[in-house]
């Protein structure tokens, strides 16, 4: 394990009990994500993409094995510690944006900052910067229902980066968008990766989305099928 590793998964397994049957999704999965990677994970439905993303994001925990993040083991943390870890290290971007419908753009972006000790003035500064970065400074006071899908996803991106996390996790970020808008969003992610050094993990089933990534992994039945991309 070296300093440039952000994530190390060692022998990770994940099993569900569904009815009487035990379903195994992963069995002894190893994986490394380096700092500065823009990793696309592809695969058919049921391949375990989302479960993997959830484990990386700390909303789900493996049944066995170890998950190391930036030199610290995180798979045994309590729910509360996990929440703090997520707040400090991860930005999430969802397929359906998941903005709070009753809050305007600026307040949606500000939401993760409520988990920090920043003053109101500092928060305002960060929010403005994040909205400017995604090109929506003029939409700050709009409610989600007053925006297009692309705009909502850009607000979601601003929300994901506002507290300056190391890692962005994107779950089908363009799944609900048309081609042009999707490209805009992906270019923005690429920019965040290249210019701002964010590590990005993106689950997608869209091959043209994967092109924006620096690496692509293909998952099938809990296994990476193109080993050449695994370190």
């Amino acid at each position: 394990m070296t300093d440039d590793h952000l994530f190390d998964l060692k022998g990770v397994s994940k099993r569900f009990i569904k009815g009487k049957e035990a379903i195994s999704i992963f069995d002894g999965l190893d994986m490394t994500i380096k700092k500065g990677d823009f990793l696309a994970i592809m695969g058919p439905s049921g391949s375990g993409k989302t479960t993997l993303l959830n484990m990386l994001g700390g909303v789900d925990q493996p049944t066995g094995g170890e998950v190391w993040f930036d030199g610290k083991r995180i798979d045994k943390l309590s729910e509360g510690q996990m929440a703090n870890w997520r707040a400090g290290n991860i930005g999430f971007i969802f397929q359906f944006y998941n903005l709070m419908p009753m809050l305007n753009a600026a307040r949606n972006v500000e939401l993760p900052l409520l988990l920090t000790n920043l003053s109101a003035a500092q928060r305002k500064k960060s929010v403005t910067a994040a909205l400017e970065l995604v090109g929506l400074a003029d939409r700050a006071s709009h409610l989600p229902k007053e925006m297009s899908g692309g705009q909502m996803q850009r607000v979601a991106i601003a929300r994901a980066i506002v507290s300056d996390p190391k890692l962005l996790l994107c779950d089908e970020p363009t799944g609900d968008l048309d081609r042009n808008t999707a490209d805009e969003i992906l270019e923005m992610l690429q920019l965040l990766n290249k210019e701002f050094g964010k590590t990005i993990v993106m689950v997608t089933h869209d091959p043209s989305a994967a092109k924006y990534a620096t690496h692509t992994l293909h998952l099938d039945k809990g296994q990476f099928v193109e080993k050449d991309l695994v370190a």
Partner: protein
Amino acid sequence: MTDFYIVWKNLTRKPLRLFLTLFATFIAFTIYGTITAFQVAWDSGVNLAADDRLVTVNKINFTQPLPVSYVNKVRAVKGVAAVTQMNWFGGYFQDPRKQLVMMAVDAPSFLEVYDQVVLTPKEQEAWIQDRQGLIAGEAVARTYGWKVGDHIPVNSNIFSQKDGRTAWDFTIDGIFKGKTPQTDTNSVYFHYKYFNETKSFGKDYIGFLGIRTTDPKLNEQVIKTVDDMFANTPFETQTVPEKVFNKGFIEQIGNIRLILTSVVGAAFFIILVIVGNSMVLAIRERTGEIAVMKTLGFQSGRLFRMILSESMMLALLGGGLGLSAATGLTWLITSKMPQMPPLLMTHSIVLQSLGFMLAMGLLTGIIPAVNALRLNIITAFSRQ
């Protein structure tokens, strides 16, 4: 932005639903405030009764008479500071269906025993001097528009004068106030002497005695002495503390307290069910949002508190409005219907209501809050 802002936005995001649940809460607390004020007024005869006052009535029943000679006999009893006689007059002013609470009394000793009747020294002087004078409580005076100096005829549906007339002529010498705002001033007093000398039957009999003891600790002893003194006479007595007498009197009507409590209970029950349900529903609709906030790193406890705050705010807002309406309503009733005992929104009612609001907020919010606490992010998302 603060958590409070998010709670507020959540509360107000569906204005129609907010209005309906607020309205239901408002109704519950309007009923609660008004009925409780009524109950307090109803009980005030018991709660405001002085500890050092006793009432002596005929043992058969308090409607049976006692000889007037008992007054002086009781006055001599050790521990009796003052004693006065009272006689129910059955009076009415113009409308025989509207009874006055009107008593024939011995003015000087009456004022000594019943200090909740507050007159100016001038009024007091005038009344004691005037054989045909009466004093009326503020509430009665307001009902009939009486002023000091008015000459009024009052009829009795029990007594008549020796010459056959059923109307007595009076001069209003004073309009008394109550010692406290709760004191019921819905009564009228006039001189026993005038009554005794003019009535056609029942001369030298009185209704009951009011006694003030020198010390409440002596009550037991005075009660025993008085009742023993008249045992085995044709007019046996029963002496009880004023509190007991008043309580017994209102209990004759039936278990009003039970009726009122049931109504308030029913109102609260309805509202609890309605508000509780819409809270559960509102939070269930927000399952996805709660899961997102958890994903962003919000602690479960914080979300739990936010939801409870929401239901608390709802209860406090609706309850506060309801209590204000009840205050207005009681004020309206008291000013427009002087024949009712004064309804007051006391501190204890307000405090109790606040307690009920918090309890309601807790009860209606606890289920959705626990649901949010337990919400599993992954199952929440897969349900979406």
